[in-house]
Each structure stands twice: as C-alpha cells, then as structure tokens.
C-alpha cells in the first residue's frame, strides 16, 4: 500500500478529521498542538532548542487515513518527538482514522503503511538522532513500530468508569474513603477555580519540582480552553488555598492533568477530597470516564492506586540513528543497578 505524507497547513483541515479516530485526545487538537509548539523547548547539550511542529496527514490517494503530529528539535543532536518535551503531555502519537470500523487485516496493513511512510518522511526531512513517541491510550497495537525496528515499552494510565457516584465511592480504596471523610470533617471545602488559582497551583508544584513546563504555557492553555475543556478545582480551609488540580474535559472523558502537590497537615490530605469532588463534578456533568493520568511512576503509585481505576495501556516507542547510540544506552543500562 503506497501512501503520501503531507504537512497540514490549516486548523480546519486538521480538526475536521480528528473526530474520525477513536484515539483522539485533546492534545491532538490544532490549538493545543500549536500552543505546545510555541512553548516547548528542549535543552540539547546546553543549548535551548525550539520545537517545530509537523502536523502530518497520511493520504491514501485523496483520502486522509491518519494523522501524526511530530515535533522536531534541531540542535547539536536532532530529536523527533511526539509529544513534545516540557509541556506536561503524557501521550500524543498517531491517529488512525475510522480505526474501529476497519477489519483487523485492513487496520494493521493501513497502520503499518502509515507508520512506515511517516518514518521515511521523518528520516528525510529531519534526520533525527533520536525518535521518541508515546502513542495514545487504547491503541493496543504497537507492532508496526516493532516491525520497523523501534524499541517498544508498555505504559499505563488509570481510567475510572463513571456510573453513579455511589458506585465510584464504593470502589475507592478504604483508606481513600476515610481520608476524604476526614478532610471533610475538618472543614476543608472544594470550589471551582480561575486563572489565579491555576497560577497558585503552578507555584506550589514548582516549589516541589513536580512540574516541568512554564507558567506561561499553563496560563495560555487556561485562556484558550477554559471553561469548555479546562476546569480547575481548589481545596480550601477557611479561605486559605491548600491544594488544587487542573482537569481536562474532552469527548466523554475528564483527565486529571496537573496539580495535587503533596500536602498533608495533621494527617489531613486535601488532595483526596479535591479529586473526589472533581470526579463527582464529572459524573454530574455526564462524563463517562475519569482518567488519573499516568500509572507507571512507582512513587505516585501509592496515591493513584487508591482510586481503583482500570488500567489502560499505551506505548513508548523509541529509535536511535545511527544505531550505535543504542550501544551507549546499553552500556548505561548495564551500569545502572537493576536488582532491587
């Protein structure tokens, strides 16, 4: 199957076909992609390099069959990334249009041809030394990348299925339920937040070194996407802001995006309550899923597991050019302690 790869020039052409893929996330929308391009920078050997977005459409004849946003960083070493660096994005990668309605044989041959063409395009246009993609959740097939010689690693995120708030509550870990009750009893309240609250959350995260993007980026996202796609929840004690989270609402899912800096005083954790209230908000507003983003980080595992979300898989795929760079990585992995 021969396919063509083209760079999309207008937001209309891009956003019009987004709905055709079951794996589309808000990060794939034109506006989010462009905002990320503006703010994403990568430090390569001490040099700060700006990102250049390639919003690629894959055409089979005249028909668009897939989209693949790729960011290129040109420095002493060249990178092709999707999602870009330093914008708090967990996944992006390819979208295959009409994926669910295709039969398996068509699905995989289309996906394979698409990735092969994009891989060639990247090689010709960007000649990167390092390629790294995180594919969108629920796209369970990573074989096209494997067949093209990429290293693939499975990743996970937690997704709660929202039925009724009682069901969700029952499914929580006992200690989480206790924590929420305790916070409530101690007078902690949760309210919706605004731009100033987003900045407050950002500052709290920055202080704890738990955010890796700029305040400008977060503010711009808020300005562009509030209130339709971005919602802020703030936990307060007597008017004093303790903690908060910024959520993304897209399609039938609400995602926890940034926030919840570690905060406990007298054994009270406002984060648990703020999550609970935002989940309740999602249920009341008819959303079907709530994603507690990222289930791989063992240090955050103890907090996130308590929500008892279902595991959803996505993949990290990487490739080195020339491949001898892989040797350096292999040596590094050899030195790094493995046995716990």
């Amino acid at each position, binding site marked *: 199957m021969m396919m063509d790869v083209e760079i999309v020039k207008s937001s209309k052409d891009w956003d019009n076909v987004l709905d055709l893929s079951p794996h589309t996330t808000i990060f794939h929308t034109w506006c989010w992609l462009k905002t990320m391009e503006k703010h994403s920078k990568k430090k390569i050997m001490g040099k700060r390099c700006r990102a250049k977005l390639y919003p690629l459409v894959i055409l089979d004849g005249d028909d668009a069959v897939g989209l693949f946003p790729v960011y290129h960083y040109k420095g002493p070493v060249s990178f092709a990334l999707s999602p870009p660096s330093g914008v708090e994005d967990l996944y992006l990668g390819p979208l295959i249009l009409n994926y669910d309605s295709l*039969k*398996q*044989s068509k699905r*995989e041959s289309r996906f*394979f041809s698409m990735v092969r063409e994009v891989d060639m395009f990247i090689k010709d246009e960007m000649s990167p030394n390092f390629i790294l993609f995180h594919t969108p959740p629920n796209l*369970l*097939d*990573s*074989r096209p990348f*494997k*067949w093209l010689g990429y*290293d*693939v*690693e*499975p990743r*996970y995120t*937690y997704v709660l299925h929202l039925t009724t708030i009682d069901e969700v509550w029952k*499914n929580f*870990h006992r200690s989480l339920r206790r924590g929420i009750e305790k916070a409530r009893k101690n007078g902690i309240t949760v309210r919706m937040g605004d731009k100033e609250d987003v900045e407050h959350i950002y500052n709290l995260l920055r202080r704890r070194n738990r955010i890796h993007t700029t305040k400008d980026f977060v503010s711009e996202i808020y300005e562009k996407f509030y209130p339709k796609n971005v919602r802020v929840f703030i936990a307060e004690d007597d008017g004093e802001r303790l903690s908060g989270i910024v959520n993304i609402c897209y399609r039938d899912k609400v995602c926890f995006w940034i926030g919840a800096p570690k905060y406990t005083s007298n054994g009270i954790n406002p984060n648990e309550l703020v999550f609970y209230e935002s989940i309740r908000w999602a249920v009341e507003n008819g959303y079907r899923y709530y994603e507690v983003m990222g*289930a*791989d980080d*063992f240090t955050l*595992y103890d907090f996130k*597991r*308590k929500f*008892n*979300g*279902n*595991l959803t*898989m996505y*993949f990290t795929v990487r490739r080195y050019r020339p*491949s*001898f760079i*892989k*040797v350096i990585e*292999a*040596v590094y*992995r*050899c030195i790094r302690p*493995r*046995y*716990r």
Partner: protein
Amino acid sequence: MRPSIGASGLGIGDKMIEICEDGVYWDELVERSPHGSIFHTWEWLKIVEKHTSSKLYPIVGFKGSTPIGVYPIFLQKRGIFRLAFSPPSRALLLYMGPAFVRYNSLKQSRRETTFLEFQNAVDKFIRDELRCGYVRVRTSPELIDCRPLKWSGYDVEPLYTYVIDLAKGVDGVLRNLNRKLRAGIEKTRKEGVKVEQGDKEDLEHLRILLYERFVKQGRKPKRSYYKSYLRDIYRRFYPDNLRIFVARYKGETVGGLVVLCFKDWSALWIGIPKIELKGIYPNDLAQWEAIKWACENGFKRYEEMDAGHLKFRHFKSKYNPCVAPWFSAEKCLGMYRFAKVIRGVLNVIKG
C-alpha cells in the same frame, strides 16, 4: 485448610511461597485462575521439564493460608550460567508466567499489590535459592498489567497474539471473515479438499514438515526435533485437550494444524507450513473447520497464537481477530548483564 504440599517454604513477611508437589492441587489452582493456561497444567509442565533439560520449580504463593497463584519456574544450567525461565525456550511455548487465583474479582489496587508481592517473593527465591542471574518471564495475554515486573527491575517488551471471539456463533464469525478468505475457503472445498481430524501419524507428518521448514530457514534442528516431546504431549492431551485437523487433497495431506483447548479457550498451536497449490487454500479451510469445531463445542475464544511476525500476519489477520498484547520480561544480574550488553552490541553491529 492449607494442604501440606511444600518441600521448601520461604517466609516473605506474612507471605509464603512454596514448591508444590501435589499435581492435583496445582491443577485446581490453574483451573481457578483466569491466567491459567494448558501450559500451566501439571502434566504439561512435567513434560516440558523432561524435554528441555531443565528443573521445574512449581511455585505456589500464599497470603496467610489462602493460595494467591502459581508461578512455574524452570532452571537451566548452561556452562557456568544459571538461567530461570517461564516458559523455557524450545518447547513450542509462547507464554506461561504467573497465574493468579481469584484475580478478576479483586479490586485493581489489590491485584497490583498481590502481583507485586508475589513477584518479589519469586525473585528472591530465584536469586537466593536458585542463584540465577538471568530470568525471562513471558506472561499470559489475560494478564494486562506488567508494571509489577517493571517495578521489580525487568525490561518488558510487548508481544502479540490474535484472539477470535466465538460468542457470535459460527455465522457471526463467518460474516466477519475477510471476503477473499471466504471465497477462498469455498473454492477450496469445491475443488474437493476435505478436512478431517487427524491422529498420531498425522502429528508425526506435521512434525516432519515443521522440521523441514526449519531446515529451509537455515536453522539446524536435530532430526528428532520435538519428536518425543510431541509424542508425550499427544499421549497425555489427546483427544480432550488436543486435536489435529488435516486437509487432504487427492489422498495427500496438504494442510493442517494442531489445536489446543482448555477451559473455554481453543487455539491454533502449530500449523503446517504452506504448500503451494494453485487456486486452493487448504490451510485456510483447515483453520476454518477448526474454528467451526471450537464454536460448536462450546469454546468461547479461539486464539491464533503469535501475531508478532510481519510475514505470517496475513494468514492470521484475515479471520478478523482482535489483537491482544502479552509481555516478555527479562532481568539480568552482574556478569549476565555484561553478557547481555555484549549480545546487544553484536546485534547492533550485525544491523
């Protein structure tokens, strides 16, 4: 009541792992586990142990007195190296690994802690008792969480298999097949190809064809490749868990496959290499007859084992299966890590 099964028990906190010596008890746990496959059954493991020059450690995990799962580990000694596998290579097996009891009824957080604790206990056993520096575990497709392995220091790679849902019945599955495949099957049937259930001799014939395929691929298998292994598997598992479907054309065997079945699962295990015959597709017909047989005998799933090969995907994907990931996890220690780097470097040099 916890049965007395263990020869050696290792205390890991309040959790214990034990080496099981009671095949009936083991099989009962495998039967209860959603990850328990035919490859986990006691007799299959014992046959694998016999034919792969390895020592089997059938580990059962306990929480208090309640069994949480089984974890078969095979120890192999190669020169100065001591290696642990689940499953071992050269036994025509894709996956094995841990099989947890009552897993699906647990909350997600409980599933994770159970797996993580069991994995840690098994790792400790492999390291301290078996003194292995290399472990390779390949988990069942039913187990979608590989994080406990990652968190325990394994490098994990996703692998794939194809699963056809038989819930819609024969007609439903038939409707879903690729149009060309349907036409091909019909044509093959009209040309007079007949599919029958085979026996020991057909299995032997299949083995020889398999052997010839390996020779053609440039490998150097022994003449007796898999002979006694397949004979033992046949003796124990035919006809309840193993069926052979062969396609015959003008008195000759021109296609076929070996199907395994266990609980509500059936699978294409070994297939006969494609024989070039113009305009007819005996392997397609044979597999279709196997799927039909599985449907009619109440199996809920039919797996076309291994979806990892670019080359073979066309044969399997035209039945319109779902693609299901499973995982290969590897961990190396000390000089084994060094050996792996050398191997990696050689691979890169070879391209």
